[in-house]
């Protein structure tokens, strides 16, 4: 008996020219893009709010909530289930199908993704959907491509975005790492040690703060350069952060799918680990997995502060103090959910609140409010969105001000 053969996916072969640099000849590269890859990057957008109407119809027998979606222009009606209504709400033209699938898993814990293409087909038939295939940043760059600087930026982002050094056969490595000592990180002893180190580090930090001027002076004639070196060293500790996430996943008996290095959004160098399998475990496991990575920065920061407080005044003391500061900042940023970046703390927050699309919803609402297209917050959900945006803006401003103050103070 022959196995059914999956239909071959169509592919496009594109040639992308690269501008000549420093007198060198213009070059090009060939990219093969499969339709499936393009599909998951689609950003479906529902029609304008005044073009549709939504009404709830709850079953008194089963208690299930259903919704009737009406296209006001074509007078077509659709029956949506609650998960379909949830997906419909995400179709704001900014959320890709990939993000949609993630939000769906977080909300319903199901991997039956057929619901998404099936809903899209249904919505298309009812002419309730517009499909937009590119990010807003890319659209803006493409629109202004005639400007030399914009073109350069676009090309740089393209090149950096394609940098991805990763492996999908890392589960064995993480399991070995866990077996040969990694498990120690998840013992009561390690937790106690972590707390003790944090206290000792905090005390050392306070002592250093009292001599802040002297410590800053010891960074030498180029304090800004020294801070950049500290930042570079910090990048490698991000790898340790991701390793801990992976070890936590192994601790809870799940599989690490991928580990690698890439440029996030095309310009932020970072290591990453794919811990999607954590959704198959308990909320406690998800929280521990999220927090464990950030604790690396707490421990390293504390150790740096202890080194700094023991060192004689000089470059080593300044370098250690700056490293400790950056590690602790990273700890706070990783766990602090209100900064528009979906880091560990954000994932814990949305998991606990049960609102996987908090950022996207909050941004959409705030944008509409600023443009005068949304009413003042009235519901608990709207207040949550406003709270998220306000806290994030204030936090980022405070963080930027603190760093500027640090650099000015060091100079």
């Amino acid at each position: 008996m022959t196995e059914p053969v999956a239909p071959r996916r169509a592919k496009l072969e594109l040639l992308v020219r690269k501008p000549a640099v420093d007198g060198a000849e213009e070059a090009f590269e060939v990219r093969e893009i499969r339709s499936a890859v393009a599909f998951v990057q689609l950003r479906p957008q529902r029609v304008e709010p005044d073009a549709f109407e939504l009404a709830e119809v709850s079953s008194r027998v089963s208690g299930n909530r259903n919704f009737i979606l009406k296209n006001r222009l074509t007078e077509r009606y659709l029956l949506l289930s609650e998960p379909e209504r949830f997906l419909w709400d995400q179709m704001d033209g900014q959320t890709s199908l990939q993000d949609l699938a993630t939000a769906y898993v977080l909300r319903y814990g199901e991997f039956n993704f057929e619901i998404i293409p099936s809903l899209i087909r249904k919505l298309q038939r009812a002419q309730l959907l517009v499909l937009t295939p590119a990010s807003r940043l890319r659209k803006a760059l493409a629109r202004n491509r005639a400007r030399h600087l914009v073109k350069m930026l676009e090309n740089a982002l393209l090149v950096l975005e394609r940098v991805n050094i990763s492996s999908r056969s890392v589960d064995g490595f993480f399991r070995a790492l866990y077996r040969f000592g990694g498990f120690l990180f998840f013992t009561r002893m390690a937790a106690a040690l972590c707390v003790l180190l944090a206290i000792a580090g905090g005390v050392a930090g306070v002592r250093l703060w009292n001599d802040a001027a002297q410590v800053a002076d010891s960074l030498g004639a180029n304090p800004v350069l020294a801070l950049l070196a500290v930042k570079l060293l910090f990048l490698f500790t991000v790898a340790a952060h991701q390793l801990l996430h992976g070890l936590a996943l192994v601790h809870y008996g799940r599989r690490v799918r991928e580990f690698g290095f890439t440029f996030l959004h095309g310009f932020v160098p970072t290591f990453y680990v794919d811990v999607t399998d954590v959704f198959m475990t308990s909320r406690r496991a998800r929280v521990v997995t999220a927090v464990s990575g950030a604790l690396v920065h707490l421990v390293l920061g504390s150790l740096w502060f202890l080194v700094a407080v023991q060192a004689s005044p000089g470059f080593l003391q300044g370098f250690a103090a700056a490293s400790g500061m950056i590690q602790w900042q990273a700890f706070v940023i990783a766990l602090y959910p209100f900064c528009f970046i979906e880091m560990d703390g954000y994932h814990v927050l949305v998991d606990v609140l049960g609102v996987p699309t908090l950022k996207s919803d909050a941004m959409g609402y705030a944008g509409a409010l600023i443009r005068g297209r949304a009413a003042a917050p009235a519901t608990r959900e709207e207040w949550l969105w406003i709270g998220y945006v306000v806290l994030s803006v204030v936090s980022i401003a405070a963080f930027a001000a603190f760093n500027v103050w640090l650099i000015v103070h060091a100079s």
Partner: protein
Amino acid sequence: MSSHDVAEFLRDVRLFQAFSDDDRAALARALRERTVRKGQVLFRENDQGAEMYLVRRGTLVVSKAVTGPVEQILARMGPGDFVGEMSLFDRAPRSATIQADAAADAWLLVLDRASLETLIDANPRAAASFFHALVQVFIERMRASSDLVAEVTRWGLEATGLDVEGR
């Protein structure tokens, strides 16, 4: 490369397979050699041109502009294939951009319009076999273009998830 080597190579070129040895030798003398370094553009879409090129070694990539620096690859031409013949006949600007593959240099033989017209005038029988083979290749390319259009349409449907059957 000697004229003899060129004439021998022309045996493998479909356009000249029906030529006699003398015709091929005469044609070999009219051809010029040209090397295109890897990745280098031979000519661009909308350039004016009065030459066609036979690929002797290497690969040429045929592409057409889509948007900004992005072009769609229409075909790859290997040894024995030819490009640029359209402008030779209709005198219109080049319809696509041709460049050597990024992996290796391409060695080409160049036939200009004047040499082709001389060939046609001097040897109508050879010219007839040349045009017959040319028509055969055009038919194959038209079929390949139709397949490409269908493939691109299928790509668009799959990439957008557009539900055509249900409409």
